[in-house]
């Protein structure tokens, strides 16, 4: 792969920030967009813009066709059995909330257990807390070990038939841990437990096959994988989707409406009330095309090489503590704490050198408490990042050390 040529597909990367070439290492928060995705958005608004599924005119036909083609692409992208299992959402967070508010409200009762882990993003904690409060169910957490992996002994005792739903993160946004999803889902399935995978950091970084993983629900966001912001996907296994009540009511999700009651469409339209983010969906389709042309295996390998190299080089910085797995078997991010600078001061310093990173609790406050750090600084990579950029990062960390000590 010619990764430098691929990098040239991203217009935004070619700029200086505070007088230095931009080194964008905040990909776990949001990725950049290739030219093809940006052009798809403008092309749609310049040529095809109309509402979908309603009118019979030419523009509406084009918009509807491109919109539904993107649903097929998304289904293929994650190995779903049918495009009818693809629900467009605003992102991972909305996907999780949809499951909590439909399947969750319908199926959970007092005494039931919702099982999650100690390394979840707030978006995979709070919807379940709200659901537990509504239904009287109990929320339990699988503890995280010092090396950033899940406590497998605790899984044996916590994953019981009392558990109705097991939801966990595929790749941790704060630790980089890649959870053994297939194995964990198999354990849950053997007990009849419904499973939900938070794919925010895995989709677009590695091949995803929901049928091989065996999960019932899988949620991901478009903007973390070269797509626009505000669009995401919830995959649900059709056998479950069919039984679920609607969440939002409105146009597009009904078969018929009378003054007394309504009947609803089949999935996925049952869960897509109102005019959707049409341009976002179509551009997400373009992002999927783009990623598949590079190849998810290639991206995964490159991610892995970057993470490995970053782990080696960053380990050279005196006073650094890297959270999560100490091996290179991790997602494309390294979260760390430096004994000489608070994350916000470090991020400010790095920014003045053109390096974009995130500092703080990364929406995982319980995890920060667990590791007794107020927050961390996170360098997160994508396939357009280079070894030279990691060298630059290390150089800036060493400069920061001189500056702050």
């Amino acid at each position, binding site marked *: 792969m010619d990764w430098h040529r691929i990098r040239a597909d991203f217009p935004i990367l070619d700029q200086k920030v505070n007088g230095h070439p931009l080194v964008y290492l905040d990909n776990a928060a949001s990725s950049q967009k290739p030219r093809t995705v940006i052009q798809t958005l403008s092309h749609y608004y310049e040529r095809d813009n109309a509402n979908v599924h309603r009118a019979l005119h030419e523009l509406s036909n084009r918009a509807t066709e491109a919109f539904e083609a993107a649903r097929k692409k998304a289904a293929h992208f994650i190995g779903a059995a049918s495009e009818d299992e693809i629900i467009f959402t605003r992102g991972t967070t909305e996907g999780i909330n949809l499951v909590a508010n439909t399947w969750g409200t319908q199926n959970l009762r007092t005494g039931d257990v919702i099982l999650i882990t100690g390394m979840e993003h707030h978006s995979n904690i709070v919807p379940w807390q709200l659901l537990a409060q509504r239904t009287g169910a109990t929320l339990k957490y699988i503890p995280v070990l010092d090396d950033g992996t899940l406590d497998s002994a605790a899984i044996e005792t916590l994953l019981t038939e009392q558990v109705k739903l097991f939801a966990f993160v595929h790749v941790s946004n704060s630790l980089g841990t890649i959870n053994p999803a297939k194995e964990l889902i198999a354990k849950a399935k053997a007990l009849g437990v419904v499973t939900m995978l938070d794919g925010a950091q895995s989709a677009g970084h590695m091949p995803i096959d929901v049928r091989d993983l065996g999960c019932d629900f899988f949620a991901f966001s478009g903007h973390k994988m070269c797509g626009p912001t505000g669009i995401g996907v919830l995959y649900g296994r059709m056998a479950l989707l069919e039984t679920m009540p609607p969440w939002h009511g409105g146009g597009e999700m009904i078969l018929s409406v009378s003054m007394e009651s309504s009947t609803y469409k089949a999935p996925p339209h049952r869960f897509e009330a109102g005019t959707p983010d049409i341009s976002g969906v179509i551009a997400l389709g373009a992002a999927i095309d783009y990623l598949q042309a590079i190849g998810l295996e290639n991206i995964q390998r490159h991610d892995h090489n970057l993470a490995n190299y970053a782990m080696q080089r960053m380990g050279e910085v005196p006073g650094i503590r890297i959270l999560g797995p100490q091996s290179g078997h991790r997602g494309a991010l390294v979260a760390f704490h430096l004994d000489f600078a*608070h994350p*916000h001061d470090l991020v*400010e310093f790095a920014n003045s050198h053109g390096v974009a990173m995130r500092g703080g609790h990364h929406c995982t406050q319980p995890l920060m408490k667990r590791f007794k750090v107020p927050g961390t600084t996170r360098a997160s990579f994508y396939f357009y990042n280079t070894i030279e950029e990691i060298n630059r990062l290390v150089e800036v960390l060493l400069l920061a050390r001189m500056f702050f000590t």
Partner: protein
Amino acid sequence: MLSDDLRDLYQQVILDHSRNPRNHGELSPPCLHAHGDNPSCGDEIDVWVRVSDNGHIDDLKFTGQGCAISQASASMMTQKIKGKSKDEAAAVREDFRRVVMGDGSPADEDSLGELILLEGVQKFPQRVKCAMLAWRALEQALESK
């Protein structure tokens, strides 16, 4: 090679206060107390104040964790405010707020003393809340009963 703005933000005196905070610790009762935090970044501060019957701030201390700006601001605040009346404290707080917000009005250097060094924050709007964290907690503590 380092921008002047960044050097202004992290002056040696500020870094020194953040590394060696003055008046760090808790006061034992009777005293007023308030906790302040910035939920978006996780910075936290606790401020303890002992106010005499005639409304003077006889002692104040703080504990907390956060960035150099929030910790230095807290440390410098305790030095500046100790011995002042509640009204005087409120006036200094307002002067300081105007300086870090950079609202264009001339800073009262006599009133602020060393705190004027945090003027550099005005070039970094996202850090205003760091500089103000301890001051918000102080205000809350003084209003508490």
